[in-house]
């Protein structure tokens, strides 16, 4: 038996609305060093994260995103691209979804997953960068919670599509 949905209030912060109106770093990056996708359309949110990486310093020169999702999703992805600019990959890796939520002035509980998905897409991109490179010590073997979340969502979407 499917547990049916019920509504709850979603009073966004003005930061979410601002970034929704004028998203920073929106769009595909043609000269990206690496990029990654997280989430799924069937689940209602998906983020593509593009990173331009300075290979020498292993720091992020610029980041951009694309998003299919709610206003909070767009804002979360956008603010994260701002937050990582100029950071080393290690520093970027350490950004948590809580940091994203805080930067947005607080996400409502049901929108936590937007922050999680944004961080998940970033970490996937960072992992992808190290795909065939020597893995730095700070990069954990196992998936972090945020990455697992993205994976679970994608698996759920698989189930949805099989159903219909």
């Amino acid at each position: 038996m499917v547990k049916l949905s019920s509504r709850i209030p979603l009073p966004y912060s003005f930061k979410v609305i601002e970034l929704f109106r004028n998203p920073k770093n929106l769009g595909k990056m043609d000269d990206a060093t690496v990029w990654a996708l997280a989430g799924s359309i069937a689940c209602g949110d998906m983020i593509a994260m593009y990173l331009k990486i300075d290979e020498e310093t292993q720091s992020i020169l610029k980041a951009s995103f694309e998003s299919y999702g709610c206003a909070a999703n767009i804002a979360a992805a956008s603010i994260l691209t701002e937050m990582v600019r100029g950071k080393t990959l290690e520093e970027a890796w350490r950004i948590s979804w809580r940091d994203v939520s805080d930067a947005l002035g607080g996400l409502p509980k049901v929108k936590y997953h937007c922050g999680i998905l944004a961080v998940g897409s970033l970490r996937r991109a960072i992992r992808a960068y190290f795909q065939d490179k020597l893995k730095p010590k700070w990069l954990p073997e196992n998936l972090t919670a945020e990455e697992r979340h993205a994976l679970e969502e994608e698996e759920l979407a698989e189930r949805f599509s099989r159903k219909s």
Partner: protein
Amino acid sequence: MGSDLNRDVEGLLKAHGVSEREVYLDSENSGLIFPEALKAMVDSYEEAARGHPAITHKLGWESYEKLYESTLKIAQALNCNSEEITYTHNGTEANNLAILGLAEASKSRRKILVSSIEHLSVIFAAEHLQKFGFKVVKVPVDGEGFVDLDFISRNVDKDTLLVSVALVNHEIGTIQDVKAIIDVVKGHDEKIVVHTDACDALGRVKLDLKRLNLDLASFSSHKIYGPKGVGALYIKEGVNVSPIIYGQLSTQHLWPSLENIPAIVGFSKAVELMHLNFESYNSRITRLRDKLIDGLLDIEYTVLNGPKGYKRSPDNVNISFLFCEGEALTVELSLKGIYVSSGSACTSRILEPSHVLQAIGRRHEEAHGSILMKITPFHSDEDVDYVIGSFPDAIRRIRSMSPMKPGGG
């Protein structure tokens, strides 16, 4: 309310700004109010609201008279007796009283059929009864939301207590052939109770309770532009329903406490307006609905949800915009002064989109992009033109942000 919520709503509203033109299309969720109904409510506060209709003094009798007059007007519009109307505080409570109160009064029968596209107040109330050994069967619907009559016919039996199908679906506007449902059910067994959630039907579809031979029907004031805080359940004489809330009765046997008489007076006014203006409202609304549907279907990658034409509620517009997440679109449209809602999972606590859209076979990504709009007697051609004119840019912007674009992205 969770403590994690943003409390700076003022800041949010400032960042949002105000559009030059505003078109409110979200009366599915919270209705507008007829100024006449508001005035009737306020006047009644000033006139008779002090009295309790069950107390023997002048003000009690005055309030009783107001209550009785209002009920009579509603009963006349519905073609039933005023004794057959029980007031609740909304459609949700009316549906709960119908289902839980019937179950409470029932001695033996333990099977309930509800359509798979019922309002959650029907589905959840029925499912709650599973705890007590009731069996709930969901009646499937076709791609336009029409219930499977054959399925009903095959599934009603000696153990069946209730069949509940809304006359008009709240999300996709499907107008069921309730008469056919009643015929099928009663043909099997006169004793099976037929309930219809008529919250969205009242004023949009001709409803003659005596002629229809319905047992139970639910109504909600705010869905017909009456005051909030009133609903009603029609209970055909002879149908046994027990109370589900307990306390001091006033004039009603099935819902205790003082009636909200001013709100009932306003509700009655709204019923009257919908009844008197039935033809003129609905011919206009239907025209505006079709204009809006046609205008929006001109946009690429769109799907209409629910039937077309006369089997669709005159006020209902529900369209899926593919490659476009509905909640984001809701916010984008709000920035343009257009207020709508979406069946997207993003408006819910979990990852499931609207159960109604799923039941008619929409894929998740289609449901996520759905936008629900209701035309009201308050809307003009200019409103609809403005909406049609505003959508393409909104859709374009939301689509442009997505990593998945029409034609493969």
